[in-house]
C-alpha cells in the first residue's frame, strides 16, 4: 500500500514537472513569436490604443486607492515606531517615499493591474479561443499574435509605468495626509525629508522594474488566454492561473531585478 502511495506521489510530481516544462516551452515560443511579429508586420496601433485606454482607465481608480492607503499605513507605522524610540516621529516622509518609489509602488501597482486587467485579458482571449474566434482571425488573414497579443503587450508597456508614477504620487500623498493629521508633522518637514534624500536614480530603480512587470503580466495573461481549453470551465481556470502566476512571478522577479539593479549601481 505504501508503494502505491509513493508511486502516485512521484507520479503526480512527475506529471506536474512535465506540465510545467511544456508550459514554459510554449510560453517561450509565444514570447519569441511576439518579438518576431513586432518586426514582421505593421503594429495594430488602433487596437493598442483601445487596450491602453481599457487597461489604464479600468485600473487607475483601484491602483490610486491601493497606493493612497499604502502610503497612509506606512506613515502610520513608521511614525509610531520612531515615536516609540525617539519620542517624536522622524523621517516619516523618507520612509514612505523610499518604500513606495523603489518597491511598493511598482510591485503593488503591477499586482493590482494583474488582478484587474490581466484577468480581463485572460478571460477575453480564453473566451475567444474556446469559441474559435482566434481560429477565425487566422482564416481572415491576420495572425492572433499580431492582432491580439502585441497590442496588449504594448499597451501594458505604455500604461503600467504611467500608472506606477501616479501610484507613487498618491502613495506619498497618503503618507502626507497621515503625517499631517495624525502626527502633526509640518508639511515642509515631510517634503524635505523626501527631496533632501531622494535622487533620480531611486526613482529610475523602481521605474525600470515596472517595464519588467508589464511585460511579464501581459505575456502571462495572453499566454493563459490563448492556450485555454474546454469551454467555460477552461476560461475560469485560465483566468485564475493568469492572475496567480502573474502575482507570484512579480514578487519573485522583483527580488532578482532588485539584486541586478543594485549590482549595476542603480540604487
Amino acid at each position, binding site marked *: 500500500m505504501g508503494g502505491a502511495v509513493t508511486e502516485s506521489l512521484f507520479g503526480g510530481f512527475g506529471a506536474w514537472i512535465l506540465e510545467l516544462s511544456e508550459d514554459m516551452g510554449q510560453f517561450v515560443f509565444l514570447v519569441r513569436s511576439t518579438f518576431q511579429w513586432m518586426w*514582421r*508586420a505593421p503594429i495594430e496601433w488602433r487596437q493598442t490604443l483601445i487596450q491602453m485606454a481599457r487597461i489604464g482607465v479600468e485600473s487607475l481608480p483601484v491602483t490610486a486607492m491601493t497606493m493612497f492607503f499604502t502610503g497612509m499605513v506606512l506613515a502610520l507605522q513608521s511614525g509610531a515606531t520612531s515615536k516609540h524610540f525617539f519620542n517624536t516621529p522622524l523621517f516619516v516622509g523618507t520612509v514612505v517615499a523610499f518604500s513606495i518609489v523603489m518597491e511598493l509602488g511598482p510591485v503593488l501597482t503591477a499586482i493590482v493591474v494583474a488582478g484587474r486587467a490581466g484577468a480581463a485579458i485572460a478571460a477575453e482571449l480564453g473566451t*475567444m479561443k*474556446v*469559441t*474559435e*474566434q482566434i*481560429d*477565425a482571425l*487566422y*482564416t*481572415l*488573414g*491576420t495572425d492572433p499574435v499580431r492582432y491580439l497579443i502585441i497590442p496588449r503587450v504594448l499597451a501594458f508597456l505604455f500604461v503600467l509605468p504611467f500608472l506606477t508614477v501616479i501610484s507613487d504620487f498618491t502613495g506619498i500623498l497618503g503618507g502626507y495626509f497621515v503625517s499631517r493629521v495624525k502626527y502633526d508633522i509640518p508639511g515642509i518637514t515631510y517634503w524635505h525629508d523626501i527631496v533632501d534624500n531622494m535622487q533620480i536614480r531611486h526613482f529610475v530603480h523602481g521605474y525600470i522594474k515596472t517595464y519588467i512587470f508589464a511585460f511579464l503580466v501581459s505575456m502571462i495573461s495572453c499566454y493563459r488566454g490563448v492556450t485555454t*481549453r*474546454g469551454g467555460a470551465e477552461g476560461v475560469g481556470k485560465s483566468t485564475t492561473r493568469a492572475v496567480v502566476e502573474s502575482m507570484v512571478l512579480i514578487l519573485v522577479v522583483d527580488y532578482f531585478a532588485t539584486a541586478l539593479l543594485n549590482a549595476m549601481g542603480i540604487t
Partner: protein
Amino acid sequence: MIEAIGVVKRFGPRTILRGIDLKVETGETLAIIGGSGCGKSTFLKCVIGLHAPTEGRVVVDGLDVTKLKTEAEIADYRRRFGYLFQEGALFDSMTVAENICFGLKYLTDVPPSQYRKIASDSLALVGLKDVEDFKPSELSGGMKKRVALARAIAARPQYILYDEPTTGLDPIMSDVINDLILDLQKQLKVTAIVVTHDMKSAYKVGTRIAMFHEGRALMTGTPQEFKTTDNPYVRQFVDGLSQGPIKMKLKEFEADDSGAAPAAKAQGKR
C-alpha cells in the same frame, strides 16, 4: 482543385487522421460525413492551414499548404478560402458590418470606403438586410450562421469550407442554410467542402460525398451511390442506426482508452 495526399494528423499520442486521400475538383461540392470525432473538422483545418498535417500534403491549385514560407505566400493561399465555423465564431466585440469586413483589410486591396457596400452585398447574398449595426449577441442562432457565412464570402473566395453548417439549427432553418449553400455555389461559382453529420444536408448540397471513419476516408461517391451502397458502415451511418459495425467499434475504443475522447476533441479545437 484541392488535393489531399496521405494526410496524417496526430495530436501528441493520439492519431486523428490516418492517411486521407481526397480530391475536390473545381466547381464541385464535396460533403464529408462521419460520426463525431472521426476527424472531419480536423481535416478541414488541415486544408486551410490551421493545423499542419503531421504527414502528407494538401495541395490547392498547385500550392502546397505545408510548404508556404513567406507572408505573401500565406496571404495568397488564405485569400482563396472562406471558412464557416461551427458556432459562427463571430467577433462579439464588433458589429455585424465590422465582422464581415474584417478580412478585407488583410486579404484584399479593397479601399475602406467600399466596406459598407460589401457588407450589405454579402448580407444580401445570405438573405439578410439592415442588420449591419447589430452586435452578434443580438442575433438569433440562424442569423448568426448567416452573418458568419456573409463574413466567409466577403472577400469573394474561390473555395468555401463549411464546418457543420446546420448543426444546432431547427430543421427548417437547416434547410434554409442548405438552400443558401446551393445558392452561393450557383452565384459565386465556388468549390466547397461541407463537413456535416446531417445526411439530409449532405444529400442536398453534395455533388459528391465522402464518409470518414476513424481517421480514414471509408467511401467516396455520388449521393446516389451512397443511397444504394451495401457497405455496412455507410449503411448504418446513412440510415442512422444504433446497431451495426460502427457502434461496436466505438465501444471498443471507449474500453481501451477511456476518457480519451473528450481530450481528443479539445485537442482538435486547438
